[in-house]
């Protein structure tokens, strides 16, 4: 929608937070960007990939977040400016390298942009990235709105280059995926010359070697870098105060919570009673700045997501300053003013302020809410998540579920991250029994598969997507093979990283920018590792089921079943129906014994609708993807398929 990639300075645009960040990278003179897809961060790299067609940039979808950070770091070591972005989980994946990088330091300005997901809008955790900045001791910045999401990148890159260490700029879903008004800045003409200077004196930061040792020396040096950063923080334009000289209550906030807080104060009409200190530099806290504002009040409300980190830091600082400024009363998460779990919003902040100030926070009248809720009981039936029509995972899990039940030994599936993670729900017949991090499904299976000696006689399976395979599935598979674990790994190859928007990965012949590149053949890799490998099309339910049954009976070693069928949402496949489907109403048994609505009740494709009036199933042509699989599940042959023209 917005042509911010080529837009001129001074142009006013409506930009998504991630678009603003991408533009920020361009304005900061970033030359290299690498990332692994993860909601809510994916659009940053996607947009930089588009930008690389116009500007001189190298942009890469790396196989995982750690490698992505390493790629960005290499650019920095060679004197270029770089960026790596990820979702909150991805920070954990980078952790080992991040720990050492923060000690070795960087050269060209380097910024990491973790995008957290408070409230787990698109995750299965609401982990904190800011904690990592503290534990590896790098400066942490948090943009408070869309303009800052852009402007802070340049500021952070320049800071990084000055202190010779990477800087964290942390976003959240409600910033990354929200849109707001941004005025564009200048994109500098970049002609960087990459050279890795490493032959000087080993400890020379500019020409020495890039290692974290000697640790004592480097750690000390790291602290000096932080001190420099703190000096910059004291003067940083992103730390702002708005409100009366001596408010009754001081709100200290960061990130998008700043907008929630401002809105809450506005709704209460309390602008003359509440001061709003918005920190853009949240670790380390600039002590002089904080002291100046703490002096204004006795009561402080800290509004942040997710963990009360800033709250704790402020309390420590306040305690140290107490002899000078007096004892302060803090409100926030720890005292229950704000919830510890989930994301915040203007109403939660408003209610907290109202309670502290003895005011009333008004929303819609209770009788309206009650009545609406009452009507919504029937008026708004629950909407569960499901696989898209034509999704190969629906077919894969149908075959897996059937095979496991026929095998009849209480076999189970360890799940992993991706669209197929939805198989914990009815749409995947609740087949998945564990789900944690990328690659964990096969890691757990590798462990389960060794418990035979302790009496575990249940068949062990894992499911792993094609992108997940390259991310962290491979080391788990290596482990299983080398340690002779008795498992079956089912690789669901739908030719893309689907959940996050269908980005390419090493199994595909195309890169982030759309150029042709060599692809890595998954079955060949598994065979080379020494697994027994079978490949099936999950749309062929019968063959998939019988292959899997056969593999489940193999008593030893690692079996890999690759189920290969392209995602229904992939640009290649989308809207191309292979079959025209229809239900033969005369043959449909519907609710009667012999069927009991198997297709609509259990298979649950959104395009198969139960027609209450007729007592039969019906195909919704608008939703049907034409994959033809439902024809195989009806034992009466009442679902007919005909090849589409």
């Amino acid at each position: 929608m917005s042509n911010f990639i080529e837009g001129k300075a001074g142009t006013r645009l409506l930009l998504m937070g991630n678009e603003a960040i991408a533009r920020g990278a361009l304005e900061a003179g970033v030359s290299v960007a690498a990332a692994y897809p993860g909601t809510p961060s994916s659009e940053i790299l996607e947009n930089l990939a588009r930008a690389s067609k116009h500007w001189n940039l190298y942009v890469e979808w790396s196989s995982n977040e750690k490698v992505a950070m390493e790629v960005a770091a290499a650019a920095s070591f060679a004197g270029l400016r770089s960026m790596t972005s990820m979702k909150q989980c991805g920070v954990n994946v980078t952790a080992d390298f991040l720990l050492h990088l923060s000690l070795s330091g960087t050269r060209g300005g380097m910024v990491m942009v973790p995008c957290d997901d408070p409230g787990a809008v698109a995750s299965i955790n609401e982990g904190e990235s800011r904690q990592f900045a503290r534990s590896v001791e790098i400066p942490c910045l948090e943009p408070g709105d869309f303009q800052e999401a852009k402007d802070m990148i340049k500021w952070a890159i320049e800071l990084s280059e000055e202190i010779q260490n990477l800087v964290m700029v942390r976003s959240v879903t409600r910033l990354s995926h929200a849109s707001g008004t941004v005025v564009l800045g200048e994109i500098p003409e970049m002609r960087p010359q990459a050279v890795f200077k490493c032959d000087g004196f080993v400890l020379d930061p500019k020409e020495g070697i890039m290692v974290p040792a000697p640790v004592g020396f480097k750690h000390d040096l790291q602290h000096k870098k932080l001190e420099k950063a703190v000096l910059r923080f004291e003067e940083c334009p992103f730390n702002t105060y708005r409100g009366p000289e001596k408010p009754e209550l001081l709100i200290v906030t960061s990130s998008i919570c700043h907008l929630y807080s401002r809105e809450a104060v506005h709704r209460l009409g309390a602008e003359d009673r509440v001061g709003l200190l918005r920190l853009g530099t949240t670790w380390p806290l600039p002590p002089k700045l904080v002291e100046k504002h703490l002096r204004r009040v006795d009561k402080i409300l800290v509004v942040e997501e997710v963990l009360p980190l800033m709250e704790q830091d402020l309390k420590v600082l306040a305690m140290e300053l107490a002899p000078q400024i007096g004892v302060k009363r803090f409100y926030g998460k720890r005292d229950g003013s704000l919830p510890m779990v989930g994301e915040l919003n203007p109403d939660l902040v408003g209610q907290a302020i109202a309670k502290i100030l003895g005011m009333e926070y008004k929303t819609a009248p209770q009788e309206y809410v009650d009545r609406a809720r009452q009507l919504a009981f029937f008026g708004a039936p629950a909407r569960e998540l499901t696989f898209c029509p034509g999704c190969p995972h629906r077919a894969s899990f149908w075959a897996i579920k059937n095979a496991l039940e026929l095998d009849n030994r209480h076999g189970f599936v360890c799940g992993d991250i991706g669209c197929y993670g939805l198989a914990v729900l009815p749409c995947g017949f609740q087949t998945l029994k564990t789900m944690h991090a990328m690659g964990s499904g096969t890691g757990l299976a590798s462990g389960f598969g060794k418990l035979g000696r302790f009496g575990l006689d249940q068949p062990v399976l894992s499911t792993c997507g094609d992108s997940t395979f390259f991310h962290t599935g491979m080391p788990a598979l290596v482990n299983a093979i080398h340690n002779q674990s008795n498992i079956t790994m089912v690789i669901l190859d739908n030719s893309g990283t689907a959940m996050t928007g269908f980005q390419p990965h090493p199994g595909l012949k195309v890169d982030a920018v759309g150029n042709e590149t060599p692809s890595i053949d998954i079955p060949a890799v598994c065979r080379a590792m020494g697994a027994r490998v079978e490949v099936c099309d999950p749309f062929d339910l019968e063959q998939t089921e019988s292959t899997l049954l056969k593999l489940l009976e193999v008593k030893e070693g690692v079996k890999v079943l690759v189920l290969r069928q392209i995602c229904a949402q992939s640009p290649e496949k989308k809207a191309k129906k292979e079959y025209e489907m229809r239900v033969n109403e005369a043959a449909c048994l519907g609710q009667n014994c012999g069927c009991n609505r198997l297709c609509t009740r259990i298979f649950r494709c959104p395009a198969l609708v139960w027609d209450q009036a007729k007592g039969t199933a019906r195909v919704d042509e608008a939703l049907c993807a034409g994959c033809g699989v439902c024809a195989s599940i009806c034992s009466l042959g009442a679902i007919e398929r005909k090849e589409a023209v």
Partner: protein
Amino acid sequence: MGNAELSDDPYNVIITGVGGQGNVLASRVLGNMLARKGLFVTIGESFGGTQRGGSVSSHIRISRDSTWSPQVPKGAAHVLVGLEATEAIRTLVDYGNRKIKVICNTRPIHPVGVIAGEISYPSAQDIRKWMEELTEKTWFIDATDEAINLGSPVFGNIILIGALSGINVLPLDREDFEKVISETMSPEKVEINLRAYDLGASMVSGRKL
């Protein structure tokens, strides 16, 4: 159409629907149209997993002088555009109020629980009755059916934007719509989108209660 002043600042619009309906597209078009008028626009979305058939909402804050929170405060929506009727009802619980105006598409998208025969989908009459009870004014539009006549269900969103401009609560101009659409679409596509927009506007003009 034209230069309606904002009756409230910030003015809050929520577009709600089912993942995959084009909620995001609609909110961006609307946002860009308003941004062209020099207004501050903030849009909050829910992406990712919720797209797999779950409920999605875009919260649009429109203001003369500031950027506001990407989440509309509870009970504070002024206008609700429902791409799907039951999602509109769901949204009214948290964000509705007696003064809210609603433009609602009539084509149902059955949740999986309904197609599986486990829960029932409310009748069109009940939906109409309940929405009229909970809102100041509701316009029901067969946007999807009309869109299919134009060639594809995806035009449904544009029809609804046209309708939103037609109820005259926001400064939405046809000219701004054309400029915004032209930035990303070819001339032939712009043509048919304009037709959809005009159709939407006409569908509300004869329909005042």
